[in-house]
């Protein structure tokens, strides 16, 4: 009895609007007035946000968990039948709301931010295209439609990272991002195919229906989940495929906010949460996820400590936050992962936009060592940024606190060591965030000749809205501890089947919270002492430093390792193939045959000596030979 919900077909409009926006802004191109493109684009996203809200209430009122709506039969081959269908359920609705909501804010913000760029219209076109693909991703009713969005967002991130295409470094970053994503995608598509051969279908409903009857730990399931995981790792920038994300900061800041913080990078989390039923069947995979998540969270946080580019810091923090989400997934706490995803969308978007407005104010300067004392100059940015910082650091009652706390407590349930590692990561996060915060806003301005000023309204208003969200966003999911009813998690229950594990007693939970709180305050204090009181700056590049910090500054040399282990061998091997195999072996063989033949030809010609007695000899010889031949044979 799916699809009986009245007006559910409105769902078409959700992706339709951004698509329209893409076509309009893309095709109209130059013909549009300078910021018309931005307005149209933002409006489109906003419309689909409205529709999503409407859908939300429709679903609520209908009392159903999900609705599938099919556009047309996409691929029907043999016994493979893949419709182009959307699935509207609580999970996808959540994602839709996040994508369109945060998305529209960022679009509005971009109107101001990209104001001076001459290719602003194509910028918005690509942003809309991205939103469209992202919506396909979250709304798809089967893995293949999801995959469309999956690759679509990859493409858009490629385009937008390389938006300022004159800079070769940016182009490189864009290519790197796309290819690393593609590596993941290969695993993903193989996983989908294996799914198909296992379940004879790729649509969520059928697969999960069958999977719920299977028992855990089957090799096939493990393989499937691992393959899917490869895709998620690539998309969500986890170890070992995370290096593209920091480079992706080459793109315009709104892009970083929308794609590389709020939405695209969370696709992996979404996909795993979506496949929760499968993952519950594969404990091994879950452990792998936990390991990946935790390491990523901590390593990225450590690297973040020593970054001096404001966007790089945020990038690494994104990576580490995604690590937390993976951790949650690994622990089977899918809903908390999605919850953290949501809150993270709020405050990380806010952080990026704030950073954007700072960069805007500083005239394109991104080095936090050159900033400082912006507290007075740009109060709105300051306050919103503060809110976001507190949120990401997990200070109650800011949104980050609730989501992160859930994950931590899950970790504690699972294993104490896990908990402390996670907590350590959280403390690191707190430290580098406040380092950033203090360096930027406190002290006195260090960059001479810059006249920082508060950004225009079109940029600040989204900041404020996001600020509000990141302050109160946590209240969506107040744990029973604080008299809440985990409304968010319950809302998701129907879509994702979280692993049930014994609740820890509220007393221990209280203790844990207090512990973490104390530590956090301590960390903030240290940060304050170092960067505000002593006001000592991070080391300049080139200054001598200890091995440890050198390693950290060089991001554990992972980029270099990849360069040496992958890129160099790749190109040299392809050189070898062409210069040696193709030109030295294959071509010579073919040409050699021709050459040999013509050699023989020349010899045969030379046989024709032109003098008679030789001819006589030849004939007689021939005759004698034939006589011998016929008489002996």
């Amino acid at each position, binding site marked *: 009895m799916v699809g009986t919900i009245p007006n559910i077909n409105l769902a078409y409009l959700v992706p339709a609007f951004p698509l329209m926006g893409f076509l309009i802004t893309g095709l109209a191109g130059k013909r549009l007035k300078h910021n018309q493109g931005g307005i149209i684009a933002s409006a489109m996203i906003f419309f689909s946000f409205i529709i999503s809200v409407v859908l939300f209430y429709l679903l609520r009122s209908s009392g159903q968990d999900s609705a599938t709506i099919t556009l*047309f*039969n*996409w*691929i*029907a*081959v*043999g016994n*493979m039948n893949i419709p182009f269908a959307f699935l509207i359920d609580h999970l996808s609705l959540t994602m839709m709301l996040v994508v369109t909501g945060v998305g529209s804010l960022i679009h509005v913000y971009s109107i101001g931010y990209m104001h001076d760029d001459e290719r602003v219209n194509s910028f918005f076109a690509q942003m809309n295209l991205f939103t469209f693909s992202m919506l396909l991703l979250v709304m798809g009713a089967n893995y*293949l439609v999801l*995959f*469309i969005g999956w*690759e*679509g967002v990859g*493409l858009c991130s*490629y385009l937008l990272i*390389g938006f300022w*295409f*004159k800079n*070769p470094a940016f*182009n490189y970053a*864009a*290519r790197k991002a*796309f*290819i690393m994503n*593609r*590596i993941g*995608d*290969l695993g993903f*598509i*193989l996983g989908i*195919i*294996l799914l*198909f*051969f296992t379940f004879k279908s790729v649509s969520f409903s059928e697969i999960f229906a069958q999977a719920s009857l299977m028992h855990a730990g089957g090799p096939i399931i493990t393989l499937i989940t691992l393959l899917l995981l490869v895709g998620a790792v690539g998309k969500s920038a986890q170890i070992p495929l995370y290096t593209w994300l920091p480079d992706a900061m080459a793109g315009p800041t709104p892009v970083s906010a929308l794609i590389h913080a709020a939405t695209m990078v969370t696709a992996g989390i979404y996909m795993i949460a979506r496949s929760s039923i499968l993952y519950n069947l594969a404990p091994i995979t879950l452990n792998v996820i936990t390991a990946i998540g935790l390491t990523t969270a901590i390593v990225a946080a450590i690297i973040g400590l020593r970054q001096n580019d404001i966007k790089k810091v945020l990038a690494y923090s994104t990576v580490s936050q995604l690590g937390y989400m993976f951790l949650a997934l690994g622990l089977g706490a899918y809903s908390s992962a999605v919850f953290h995803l949501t809150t993270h969308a709020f405050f990380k978007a806010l952080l990026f936009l704030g950073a954007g407005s700072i960069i805007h104010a500083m005239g394109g300067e991104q080095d936090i060592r050159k900033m400082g004392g912006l507290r007075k100059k740009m109060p709105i940015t300051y306050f919103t940024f503060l809110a976001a910082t507190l949120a990401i650091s997990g200070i109650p009652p800011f949104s980050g606190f609730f989501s992160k706390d859930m994950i931590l407590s899950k970790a504690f349930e699972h294993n104490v060591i896990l908990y402390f590692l996670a907590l350590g990561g959280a403390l690191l996060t707190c430290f580098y965030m406040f380092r950033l915060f203090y360096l930027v806003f406190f002290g006195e301005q260090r960059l001479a000749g810059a006249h920082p000023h508060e950004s225009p309204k079109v940029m600040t208003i989204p900041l404020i809205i996001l600020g509000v969200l990141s302050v109160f966003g946590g209240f969506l999911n107040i744990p029973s501890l604080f008299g809440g009813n985990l409304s968010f998690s319950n809302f998701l229950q129907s879509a994702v089947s979280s692993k049930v594990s014994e609740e820890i007693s509220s007393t221990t939970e209280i203790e844990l919270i207090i512990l973490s709180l104390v530590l956090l305050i301590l960390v903030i204090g240290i940060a304050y002492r170092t960067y505000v009181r002593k006001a000592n700056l991070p080391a300049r590049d080139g200054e001598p430093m200890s091995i440890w910090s050198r390693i950290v500054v060089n991001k554990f040399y992972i980029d270099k390792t990849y360069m040496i282990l992958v890129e160099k061998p*790749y*190109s040299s*091997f*392809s*050189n070898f*193939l*062409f210069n040696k*195999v*193709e030109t030295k072996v*294959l*071509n010579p063989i*073919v040409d050699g045959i*021709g050459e040999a033949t013509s050699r023989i030809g020349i010899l045969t010609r030379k046989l024709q000596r032109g003098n008679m007695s030789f001819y006589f000899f030849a004939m007689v010889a021939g005759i004698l030979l034939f006589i011998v031949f016929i008489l002996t044979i």
Partner: protein
Amino acid sequence: MILLIILFLPILTGLFLLPFRSASVVRPMALAASVINLLITLSLVLSPSAAYAVEWISFLGINFSLGFDGISMIMILLTNLLFPFILLAGFNREQRNVHILNFLILFTQSALLGVFLAQNAFLFYVFWELSLIPVYFILLIWGGDGRKTITFKFFIYTLTGSLLLLFGIIYLYQLTPVPHTTDFAAFNKLNIPATTQIWLFWILFIAFAIKMPVFPFHTWQPPTYNMASTQGVMILAGVMTKMGIYGALRFLFPVIPQGVLYWQNTVIVLSLIGVIYASLIAFRKTNLKMLIAFSSMAHISLMVAAMFVLNTYALQGLLIQTISHGVTIAALFYIASLIKEKTGTIELPQLGGLKLQAPKMALLLLIVVLGSIALPLTAGFIGEFLMITGLFQQSIWFAAIGGLTMILGAIYMLYAYQRAMLGVQKSVFNKITDIRALDYLILIPLIVVIIGLGIYPQPIFNLFDQSIHATQNLIKPVAEAVSALAH
């Protein structure tokens, strides 16, 4: 009868046009003819039932019998779809002896259609050779530098394969029950001892392997593509490579299933090697046309691999990829030659930043590139997805290696795109022009096909299913061979 029209309309038009020397007369009429042919073909798609057969050389069992099934139909569709654009590519361009050139192109079209329509091996062979002759002259007369030697190598190399094929055909002919015949129908009924099939396989396959080309029979290809004129390379890469695939489907699977089975993995491995090999080389190629040539080889190799796993997914994927690859590669080469026209070079290091002056060209190139790296919602994705699915059914490793095209293709294609279009602009390209209406006329429809089939491929699948017996003809014999081995 309608088949006769489809078959002979182009060449007759070409002959009729020979006396006219002015381009303004020849080109439009040639174009008109090919468009009409396309329309007729489409009408045929709607009502797919036509055949034509007369005795030709009775004492040699040769009949002039035309007909088609899903596979041929798709090939014919591709041919007639591409040729209008190939002819269009000649418009507004400086060409010597336009009338002869257009005649040769139309001649090629007829020959190719003949290959795909023939229901008789001898007829097939005749057209197979015929298609080579005009192309040879197109390359020889209108080709680029070093055409004399390169064209010659290509010609001889291809003919070597063809003559072995001829041997194979005659061998099959004399195996048929008296009175001997060369009809495919008779060939399909043969059951040849396995030992024979095993050696006969290569006699027949080499010709196709060279045409496609399969590693390591590909050495003629990159230089030829690089040297060929725009139209020449569009024909070569767009359609002629498909002759090999079609021929293999026609000859190998129904006639010598056991041979196919015996060599299946060999060929698949060879093709997969080809995939990796070509992709890797393409990465280091600085000459754009060479690069596209190698990328084409990579794609074709994947198609060959898919062809030899021989299950429904692979076949369907193969067929849709046939069209997708034909269209994409034609568009790619067209844009490449546009770049050559505008900048005078095709060497990537000398290019760069063209997007500043020619954003539209950059955009179109990007779309085509995305099509060729099989982004979802392009036909390429459907094709590669299905083919990889098919490979998966054989072995997950085949699928994984075949799937590497997704990554490697992205690597070299995007690299090439960025080197040509993005980055800082060279000062010499300050005043190059963006593409003109004519180029739109060629590229937009091709792109529409690429994306349209990516969004809604079903028509092609249906077309193929309409002649489900075609699938049966291909799969059943091999399946039987498998079961025979089992017992």
